[in-house]
């Protein structure tokens, strides 16, 4: 007796685990066992990601999905499904738009508590912030001396919770479900920046949550234009002349893209991880002139700065706005 094949149904849905309907069936996969192998392996992350559409309008919502994998197993001896309650095998997973590094190994599970990898947060003085946590693994969070008990209803719309960090907070402590084991402490530094206008960059970090990085120092906005030229014939055949005020070359398809260069100001070495994740993010936004606008990181290389090498650490971030200057959305 051996496994012959499997038919895998992927149900992807919001709400609570296991509460899916046939309408949530997104994929059905079938695969035979390779004769020299003992099991059948299928990779599903790409399929699942099609249904994780993270968007952001300064609203900090929980973008997660339940994935129920139903494996119907067939016996090579009989060709039939295994009986006795051995098939189908049903497992539930929670999909998040995160990723693991190579050293995190296969099927990375990563943090079940704080969804913020560095231990420092920088906020403008007098400005509140957001701190992402994974509700399943956090019992309480103490922000300065105020305790927030975390509850998990099981619903996807609150698996990632963004706690409000009041203005001028100094520390965040994240505790395990037992409310006594301290898992992480984040030092919050409130920056007084009287000269430059701080800008907030929000991006999807390694752990699948929206994370904010404030850039306090010099900002440079640039603008590049693309166009095309064609040569035209401006001879009037009736008078056999042409107007000298009409050019021989004509410009068309003119548009422009705005870029912006930001500086974080001096941050600790530990903040390298946040910048690294920002560079690796597929989705990022800037809060710019009262609107949340999508940007694309233009910088393609990142230097891991250290106090030893660089003394005071400032990161320069270059972005391009993810749209044309002239509205040509059709």
């Amino acid at each position: 007796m051996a496994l012959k094949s499997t038919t895998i149904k992927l149900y992807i849905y919001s709400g609570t685990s296991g509460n899916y309907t046939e309408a949530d069936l997104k994929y059905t996969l079938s695969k035979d066992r390779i004769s020299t192998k003992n099991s059948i392996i299928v990779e599903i992350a790409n399929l699942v990601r099609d249904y994780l559409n993270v968007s952001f309008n300064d609203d900090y919502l929980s973008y997660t999905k339940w994935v129920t994998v139903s494996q119907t197993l067939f016996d090579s001896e009989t060709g039939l499904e295994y009986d006795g309650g051995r098939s189908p095998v049903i497992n539930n997973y929670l999909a998040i738009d995160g990723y693991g590094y190579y050293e995190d190994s296969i099927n990375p599970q990563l943090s079940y508590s704080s969804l913020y990898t560095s231990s420092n947060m920088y906020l403008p003085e007098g400005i509140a912030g957001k701190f992402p946590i994974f509700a399943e693994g956090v019992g309480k969070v103490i922000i300065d001396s105020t305790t927030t008990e975390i509850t998990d209803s099981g619903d996807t719309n609150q698996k990632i919770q963004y706690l409000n960090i009041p203005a001028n907070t100094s520390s965040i402590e994240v505790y395990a479900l037992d409310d006594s084991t301290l898992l992480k402490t984040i030092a919050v530094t409130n920056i007084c920046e009287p000269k430059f206008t701080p800008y907030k960059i929000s991006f999807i970090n390694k752990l699948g949550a929206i994370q904010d990085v404030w850039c306090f120092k010099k900002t440079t906005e640039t603008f590049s234009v693309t166009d095309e030229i064609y040569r035209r014939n401006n001879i009037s055949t009736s008078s056999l002349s042409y107007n000298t005020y009409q050019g021989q070359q004509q410009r068309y398809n003119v548009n422009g893209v705005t870029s912006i260069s930001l500086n974080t100001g001096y941050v600790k070495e530990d903040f390298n991880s946040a910048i690294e994740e920002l560079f690796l993010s597929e989705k990022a936004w800037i809060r710019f002139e009262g609107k949340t606008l999508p940007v694309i990181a233009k910088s393609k290389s990142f230097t891991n700065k250290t106090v030893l090498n660089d003394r005071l650490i400032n990161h320069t971030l270059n972005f391009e706005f993810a749209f044309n200057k002239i509205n040509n959305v059709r």
Partner: protein
Amino acid sequence: MSTKINARSPFFIEATEPTATLGIFDCTTANLLNFAVSSAGDVTEPGISKGVIIDRTATSFAENTSGSAISRSVTYTIQIPAGYSNTSDGTLSCVQTIDQPTQSAQCNPSTNNNMATFSGTIPAITNLTSTTVNLATYFTAGTGATISGYSVQNYGAAAISTSVSGNTLTIATNSSCATTTLRVTAFNSADSCSAISNIFSVASECSKDLTCSITDANSDGIFSIGAGGAVSATGVISKPIYGIADFVRMEDTSGNTITSLPPNNGASSQTVYIVFVFLVPDGYTNSGNENELDCQRSFTQPTTAAPKVDLQCSDVTFSDFTITSQGNIIGGNISYLGTTTSVATSMVTETSAIQYNVVSSSTSRTISVTFTVENTDWLNYNSSITCPLSLTQPPTQNPCNSASGTYYISNQGFASKNAFCDFGSTYPITKGVFGTPVDGQTVCSQGDIFIGEFKYYAFNENPSPSGAGNIGASFQVMKIDNSGTILETRTVNCQGDTDGDGAI
């Protein structure tokens, strides 16, 4: 905790050959045997066939001097072994009940001078690697007998071993963070009466806190508390597995002691939280004076409502579906729990055709009926399922539906077969018909019977523009009635009929 799919990295799932489940592990499976409580209150731990006892509610009772038996119960917490369908529940509680006999007059130490006596208190032992206890310090033989031997009851970790040689009890372990409680019984050489010691705790060295984390394992592989556990739809709680601490009680998140939860009568499963309170044993850095450790766990409590399942074909009743003699499939009623009737969206043959060919005798058919599940009680609500349905197709009533064979007849018929010879004419035989040109068979044309009006028609296997009449050769004719039946066939030769009267 949910297993996460970090969707930007690959996530692999593996299908393996399922192992035969051993079924549900219950107290019968555990098969606790030989539980006993002596008159002195000494509990004899039951043997267990399957699983491991990880905790008990009592290790001793008060001495029974009441003169009558007292019913005693101990609840044993058993770790469910792997391979059972409820292994993930972690533990199972099994109650053992037995009558504690009253102390017999014979075993009353004040009247039986054979009995050993116990005095003092064997102290708790900490930081154990190996140590000895001189039992003679605590047990004194009676004046009428000697101490014949000792037995040691070990109520905890198997990692702590005990042995008795003479009056010396040796306690040893190779494990750190192992704890147990022990009790010693002394027997005398003259009768079956015994004396018992106090229960004392033993703990090996452990320079760390006991925590709720299941990942907090020491080098000896002894895990702290927390894995497993479950809450049933009706609210029955199965405690998580624990191997070190002593379970004290369960609480809700408000700190109220609970033994069960309310049933979940909602429409869907819900997340519930239970705080398991344990006593931190000696040896751990966070042990102390009855120091308790609260471990909160969340569980998914299923609903008591019947779980939604897919509507299967076996749940469906089909009625009034038929196949006509012409091979057409006629739809009927589709009924199943929650919906009295449903309409088929598709009915096809085994070859996905919408109609069968006619048959001359009854024929078994299996059609495929597709319909939409219209009741929300089913998991596959609003989706289509296809079910096979066995029906019988009756034979056709029209013989031309099953007619085979082609031949040709004349376009013109005559009341007399010899009329073909009149006037020296010839007649074409070009009208194609179906059937067999023999008496009694039916002549079919364009799927229906050919109405012959009891006339004679010339016929031939092949079409011929001048196949009948005065053709200088014989030809064949057939008489066809109004049901298309061939009444007779004849061979005609027009040679000799020169006057045109039809007589040859």
